[in-house]
């Protein structure tokens, strides 16, 4: 049956009643959109450091964190305000007695709430266009992008608003609605952290799928888990969203957010609104005033919150107590406490805090069962060791190996399990003792020097594969690895650099070489000796004398710092650890931000749950450790050259003294070839103990691909490599001398 009540009139009336909400949002978005653009434009017009267009691009368009956060917050606020009628018996008596279905009423309210956002938001976007036009920097492309960004902003709002509406419908009080929104936002990530924590602490041998290693020390969780986290709540999805690395510059580049993510934000609010309407139909009027709208959810939610809390406590006290009995007591106590707190939130009556004792019983049973499964390894994860006869193949890999491996289908993998599959060998007799040793060393610390951390794979004859991470006696590993490396085919599989051909060398963009200070000093001495030997031959190079090379080089570098039209190296200390090298002529704005530390971990940045590299507001604060993404800098309208003419390297000393210099492409190629030869002829063991330094090679297949950074250890006995480095050092010094001249 249809109502004679006009949907339109009712919606407009409801919207008018929400005037305060419209006004509030108008004010907030005025500050976040047009004012945020106006103030820097006005300032820039006076100081004229950058172009006004650059300022415009920084402040309008896609992926503006402040705007997105405001939109998300307004979505939540609107839902709490607009649907507050669901928490009031008086208002429900009034509204539900009207000749209008309650789902229609919800839609009326929903639409009115949406209008409170859409009108001020779009008005402020229009004001921003006006501001840009007044300063003469607005273009059709930017307006088009702003229009698209506005539509995306509306989708973000609808997503946040609908999700918060679901929380409001599931609860009967505003306080519990707020708690529900908070819980829905972070519940899955927190549970995930607790589970990962329990795995790391109690099941150190477990090597889950999707694990990668950052510098061998820190586990990172790859795509599937990252995707799970990024999609763990609608609000996180919005905040984690980025237009595929194309942030900020869409107005220039014409790169737009991918259709899939836009469709996701179309489907998500639609699905949640449909859920809201379904909830409206089944939600009882008498739910108003109760903590939760559906009584059956009380126990479920209580248990779902109390169990992870109890596990978290158990995990936390494990290190301190190391007593199963006490740990059980803590888990039980905090499980019960969680239930009591939840019951208090439900009833708001301390006398009823112990009501529903079966909830406490279930919580305790589940918490203790899960805790003991982890704590006592009841599943036998740590002690798993198949019979040797059952094994068809095994593989072993030190986690401290930062190479890029490619699957058979040509796709790069950082998944430790995939890499172990690539390194399979049928030399079970050789590797089995490592596994036995690993099972015995479960509680041992791999970082005390006596042991080494290994990841292993068992491939059983049944076809099943099992992966484990072990702490193994170093000597045992070394002898096994030495024997494995005798096999040239295995060695090529283990060290992908051995297979690099000319095509791959062309894909290299930068090389960083880190050597101890003494080694560089030795190069300088060699150079000085060379100069002495050749004195008189090099006319005009009178400063280039023994013992003065380093100072001269540094002076030359200083004089060229960012000013020369030719290639220059600039040294800068950052926290005493990171050196900065720039190719000023090629890309002065971009390369100045590249850091050795950042570049070294560029293959990591895309694994972070929120890719801050695509988020200019965040990345400024967290550049260290992230991939240097040129898209961060909107003012540059030029695309990065690929590949660059010159490779760069830096040296780092433990004293924090750094110098920087450039390496020609030809020298870089020689360096890789020399390294290949040295590695092929060596015993094949690259270990920290015997290393002299490291070489990080940054490369990518296509310009829009993420960077790969392969890090190979250098050894003193890699004489060809060291020779190439020495030559390159001398060449570089001479080049700089020439430039100075």
């Amino acid at each position: 049956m249809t109502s004679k009540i006009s949907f339109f009139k009712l919606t407009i009336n409801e919207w008018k009643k929400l005037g305060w909400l419209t006004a509030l949002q108008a004010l907030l978005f005025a500050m976040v959109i047009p004012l945020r653009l106006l103030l820097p434009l006005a300032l820039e017009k006076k100081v004229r450091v950058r172009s006004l267009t650059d300022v415009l691009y920084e402040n309008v368009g896609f992926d503006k964190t402040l705007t997105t956060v405001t939109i998300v917050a307004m979505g939540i606020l609107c839902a709490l305000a607009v649907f507050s009628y669901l928490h009031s018996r008086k208002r429900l008596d009034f509204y539900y007695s009207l000749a209008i279905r309650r789902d229609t009423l919800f839609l009326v309210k929903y639409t009115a709430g949406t209008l409170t956002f859409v009108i001020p938001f779009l008005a402020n976007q229009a004001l921003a266009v006006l501001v840009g036009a007044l300063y003469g920097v607005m273009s059709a492309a930017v307006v088009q992008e702003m229009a698209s960004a506005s539509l995306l902003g509306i989708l973000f709002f609808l997503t946040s608003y609908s999700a918060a509406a679901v929380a409001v419908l599931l609860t009967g009080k505003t306080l519990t609605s707020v708690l529900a929104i908070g819980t829905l936002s972070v519940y899955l990530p927190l549970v995930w952290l607790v589970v990962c924590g329990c795995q790391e602490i109690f099941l150190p041998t477990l090597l889950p799928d999707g694990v990668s290693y950052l510098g061998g020390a820190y586990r990172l969780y790859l795509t599937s888990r990252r995707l799970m986290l990024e999609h763990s709540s609608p609000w996180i999805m919005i905040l984690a969203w980025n237009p595929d690395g194309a942030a900020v510059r869409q107005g220039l580049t014409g790169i737009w957010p991918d259709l899939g993510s836009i469709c996701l934000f179309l489907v998500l609010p639609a699905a949640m609104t449909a859920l809201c309407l379904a909830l409206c139909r089944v939600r009882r009027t008498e739910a108003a005033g109760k903590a939760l709208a559906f009584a059956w959810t009380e126990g479920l939610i209580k248990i779902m919150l109390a169990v992870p809390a109890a596990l978290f406590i158990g995990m936390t006290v494990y290190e301190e107590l190391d007593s199963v009995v006490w740990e059980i007591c803590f888990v039980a106590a905090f499980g019960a406490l969680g239930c009591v707190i939840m019951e208090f939130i439900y009833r708001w009556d301390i006398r009823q805090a112990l009501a529903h004792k079966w909830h406490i019983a279930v919580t305790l049973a589940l918490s203790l069962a899960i805790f003991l499964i982890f704590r006592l390894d009841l599943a036998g994860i740590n002690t798993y060791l198949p019979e040797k006869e059952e094994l068809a193949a095994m593989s072993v890999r030190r986690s401290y190996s930062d190479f890029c491996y490619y699957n058979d289908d040509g796709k790069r993998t950082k998944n430790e399990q995939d890499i172990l599959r690539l390194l399979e060998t049928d030399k079970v007799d050789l590797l089995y003792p490592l596994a036995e040793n690993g099972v015995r060393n479960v509680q041992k610390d791999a970082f005390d020097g006596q042991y080494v951390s290994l990841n292993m794979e068992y491939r059983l004859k049944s076809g099943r594969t099992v992966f484990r991470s072990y702490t193994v006696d170093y000597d045992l590993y070394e002898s096994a690895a030495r024997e494995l490396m005798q096999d040239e085919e295995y060695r090529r599989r283990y060290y992908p650099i051995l297979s690099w051909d000319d095509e791959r060398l062309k894909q290299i963009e930068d090389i960083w070489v880190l050597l101890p200070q003494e080694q560089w000093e030795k190069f300088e001495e060699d150079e000085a000796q060379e100069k002495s030997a050749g004195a008189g031959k090099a006319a005009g190079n009178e400063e280039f004398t023994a013992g003065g090379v380093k100072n001269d080089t540094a002076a030359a570098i200083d004089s060229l710092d960012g000013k020369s039209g030719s290639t220059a190296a600039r040294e800068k200390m950052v926290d005493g650890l990171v050196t900065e090298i720039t190719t000023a002529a090629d890309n002065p704005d971009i390369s100045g931000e590249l850091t050795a530390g950042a570049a070294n971990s560029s293959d990591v940045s895309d694994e972070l749950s929120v890719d801050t590299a695509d988020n200019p507001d965040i990345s400024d604060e967290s550049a260290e450790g992230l991939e240097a993404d040129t898209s961060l800098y909107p003012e540059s309208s030029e695309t990065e050259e690929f590949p660059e003419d010159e490779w760069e390297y830096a040296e780092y000393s433990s004293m924090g003294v750094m110098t920087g210099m450039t390496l020609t492409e030809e020298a870089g190629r020689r360096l890789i070839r020399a390294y290949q030869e040295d590695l092929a002829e060596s015993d094949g063991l690259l270990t920290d103990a015997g290393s002299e330094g490291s070489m990080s090679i940054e490369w990518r297949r296509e310009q829009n691909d993420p960077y790969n950074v392969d890090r190979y250890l250098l050894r003193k006995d890699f004489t060809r490599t060291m020779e190439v480095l020495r030559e390159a050092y001398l060449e570089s010094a001479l080049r700089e001398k020439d430039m100075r001249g």
Partner: protein
Amino acid sequence: MIEIQDVTKRFGDVTALNHVDAQIDEGCIFGLVGTNGAGKSTLLRVAAGVLKPESGSVKVDDTPVWEEPQAKEKICFLADTGWFFPNASANTMRDYYAIVYPEFDRARFDELIGKFDLDPKRKLSGFSKGMRKQVAVLLGLCANTKYLFCDETFDGLDPVMRQAVKSLFAAELLNRKFTPVIASHSLREIEDICDHVGLLHKGGVLFAKDLDEMKLGIHKLQCVLRSPQQEEELLAELEVLQHERRGSLLTIVARGEREEVNAKVQEKEPLFFELLPLTLEEIFISETEVAGYDIKNLIL
């Protein structure tokens, strides 16, 4: 006509309505009385489509009321805890009612609000409880719905206003199809306006009858007879609902035709005899006692 069929409504462990059956005919003023917690508000909320019963149904003119706009558009429900929009004035509410009740009579509302000497532009939050009740009743009346559910509406109205509202109800009854249902915990408050009354007690309707019928069929008499034997004979001959003896004065509440009761007493040649008017309260007490309930202390 409103038909309430086997309606049960529970709030957790509490059964507010327990298999309630009732019928409210068109054109009457139906009083729903009962103690606090008897289920009056719950019954009205179920009837207005605010609450969904666990079982049973409420039909308005043969249409189920739950989530049926066609049935609900015939009802205006004035809840006991009336709610107005924040910062709303009488005019604001009038405008909203005009949207949600298509038959709303704005002119009449403006006229009545003037007659009741209420400022239509003043914020309702600044009104007294009685004044807000008046506005609520006027809004309900001007909604021009066929049925008007008033939950404790007269509570808080002064006697003058109560009479004025009763007059308005009476006028509405004359002018159009109008059936107000008035819930109250006080019989005295509604006895002079209702012509049908239903008594709710502990979630059930004890009875629902025409008030005049009840008044005509029940009589209270006081008499002094010549001998105890005659008293025994009289009590046996009459359909006695209640009797009391104080000294030689015998007070009887009996069911039957007035003439019949009168004749039977006169046959005994009483020394003193008088037929007294019955209050609604006494009728209820008598009826409920017959029904097996002792609710003397429950109804004021």
